[in-house]
């Protein structure tokens, strides 16, 4: 290459070094007066897919930014303001690692709150545990986050997929002992965890599963899979798909004249963004598991928790969708973080944050279904131990039966 390139590169590198080291000095300064800073602010970091294939979840970070702003305006937590640093990782694990290192090493974040996605969380888990920085309420339903013995600084949030699948399995084994089950699932850990849970729950009856089909997120439709499952002669359909594919599957099954007993995973149990697109008449009789209130469900219109959430949405986060259940989820998670920080009192250390996250007792945000409470312990990193079965009656999800324990 021409010599001029070398010199130019040299100049570029010098600027790079100057630029970076200057920034480092800035944060070094922060470190020096770290004591005084941490007295007034609580730094919470987060990685979120604001771009890329999972952008739909970016609303979680946006809502939580608005929520912490509201908390700060009301005086903060124990007199301290939350400084919420949420950054884009594009759903790419290498980017997540890079951004988390920035949040931890340069911004001195106290904890990484709700990083989203199984792959990104898997990528940062080892690093955060080595650094002893809490990976707090990871926004993924994979079963591996409940491992306090090996990864004491990692705790999940969602109902995990294995537990949910197991609940359907147990229910089917009990109520439909002669069912012929067909399952459609996404070809990744999310889908496979469900399948594992379902088989677990069915126990000896696991041979009731007569057909399995998978799809990829890049598939335009799941029509072919539905035809295969119908052809298997199954009379029970477990639908483990994300919202768009769930809507397609429900509609397609109905349209080709397949009328099985249908179970729909919680991920897609939104009336507004799944069942309405699929057709409400085509969704009658679906069974799901719920743990929080669906904002598009008319039965909660006068509910106090829902009213508070709606008011928050219109005032603080007007660009967020009122029919998007993800916004309810994000709100509950933010409330849970606030609860943990309140419990921390004056001891705002990573260690104490983790201790308090594993010390939630009967915490019941108003958007959870009646009777469901968050409980954790030093050896129990599972937030939700109870689930509610619900059936769709053409308008709303109607809870039925007792609360079911996931264990």
């Amino acid at each position, binding site marked *: 290459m021409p010599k001029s390139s070398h010199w130019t590169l040299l100049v570029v590198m010098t600027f790079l070094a100057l630029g970076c080291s200057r920034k480092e000095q800035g944060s070094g300064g922060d470190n020096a007066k770290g004591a005084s800073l941490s007295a007034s602010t609580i730094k919470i970091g987060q990685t979120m897919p604001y*771009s890329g294939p999972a952008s739909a979840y970016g609303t979680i970070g946006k809502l939580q930014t608005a929520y912490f702003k509201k908390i700060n305006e009301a005086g903060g937590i124990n007199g301290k303001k939350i400084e919420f640093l949420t950054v884009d990782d594009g759903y790419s694990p290498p980017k997540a690692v890079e951004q988390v290192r920035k949040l931890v090493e340069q911004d001195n974040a106290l904890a990484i709150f709700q990083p989203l996605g199984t792959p990104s969380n898997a990528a940062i888990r080892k690093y955060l545990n080595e650094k002893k920085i809490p990976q707090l309420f990871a926004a993924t339903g994979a079963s591996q986050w409940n491992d306090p013995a090996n990864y004491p600084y990692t705790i999940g949030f969602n109902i995990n997929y294995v537990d949910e699948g197991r609940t359907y399995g147990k229910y089917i084994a009990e109520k439909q002992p002669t069912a012929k089950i067909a399952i459609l699932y996404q070809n990744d850990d999310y889908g496979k965890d469900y399948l594992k849970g379902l088989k677990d729950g069915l126990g000896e009856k696991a041979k009731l599963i007569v057909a399995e089909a998978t799809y990829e997120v890049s598939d335009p439709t799941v029509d072919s899979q539905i035809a295969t499952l119908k052809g298997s002669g199954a009379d029970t359909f477990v639908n483990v798909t994300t919202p768009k594919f769930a809507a397609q599957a429900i509609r397609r099954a109905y349209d080709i*004249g397949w009328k099985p007993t249908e179970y729909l995973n919680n991920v897609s149990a939104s009336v507004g963004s799944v069942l309405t697109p699929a057709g409400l008449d085509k969704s009658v009789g679906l069974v799901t598991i719920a743990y929080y209130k669906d904002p598009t469900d008319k039965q909660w219109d006068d509910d106090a928790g829902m009213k508070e959430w709606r008011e928050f949405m219109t005032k603080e986060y007007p660009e967020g969708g009122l029919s998007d259940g993800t916004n309810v989820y994000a709100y509950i998670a933010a409330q849970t973080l606030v609860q943990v920080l309140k419990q921390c009192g004056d001891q705002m250390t990573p260690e104490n944050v983790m201790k308090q996250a594993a010390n939630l007792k009967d915490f019941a945000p108003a958007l959870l279904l009646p009777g469901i409470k968050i409980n954790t312990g030093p050896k129990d990193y599972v937030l939700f131990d109870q689930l509610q079965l619900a059936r769709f009656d053409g308008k709303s999800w109607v809870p039925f039966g007792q609360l079911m324990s996931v264990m």
Partner: protein
Amino acid sequence: METLLHQILSGLAAGGIYGSLALALVMIFQATHLVNFAQGELAMCSTYLAWSLIHAGCPYWLAFLATVGISFVAGALIERCVIRPVENKPALAVVLVFIGLMLILNSVAGWIFGYTVKTFPSPFPDHPLFGNTYIGNHELGIIAVMALMVALLYLFFRYTTLGLAMRAAAVNPDSSRLCGIRVGRMLALGWGLAAALGAVAGMLIAPIVFLDPSMMSGVLLYAFAAALLGGIDSPGGAVVGGFLVGVVENVMGAYVIGTELKLTVALILIVGVLVMRPAGLFGKVVVTRV
């Protein structure tokens, strides 16, 4: 047997989806000799436009026509304003502009309309003909509309002076200019027509796959494969290519290799065919002159 029939018919329906976007790709190739990677995102944006019009109370067909018209103008404008500055630059620079456009359109659509899926109405009656449960009216409608578009494109390129001029401008811009063809105008026209075809494709596809900013990301690869399989210079070939891709993928996925690898195997088959027949099944074989 019934399942096989279902697989084939749903393959045809999927093929209709691939073929309709493939037509837009063929159109832009005919006009510019480039494949526009942002074509899917353009179609998605057009569909959002139609959705907004319908939600503002506009009747379906009026919204349909307005969207096709606006898309045509927008396509021509994009050519004039965004592509023109790099027209004579290396092809890869143009490809990069396509990639940039794709990212911008996708991101902006998500920003404005959000990422939750929306329903898009079908112009065809909901209740299937003769009570059959194999193929819906909308799927039949897609196939009919596509047949119509292919016929129109064929007539346009074959029998109109404008169509001939467009092809000439793409094949040999310099000679065309000497013959008095306004090459720049032809390029803009090609972009406009491709965007209009894409808009039709988007509005046909959206009722099936639902409307969201990534609705075309899965379809683009298949459409690209369909267009090349059929022959990138042949509108009819693109549609047949679409059907072939749809049916082969479904039948292979359901009976031979399972759903996990159906995309991979379908693509291997297509690339295999192209190695044997580099001009596609219906494409013209180009003999290179030294």
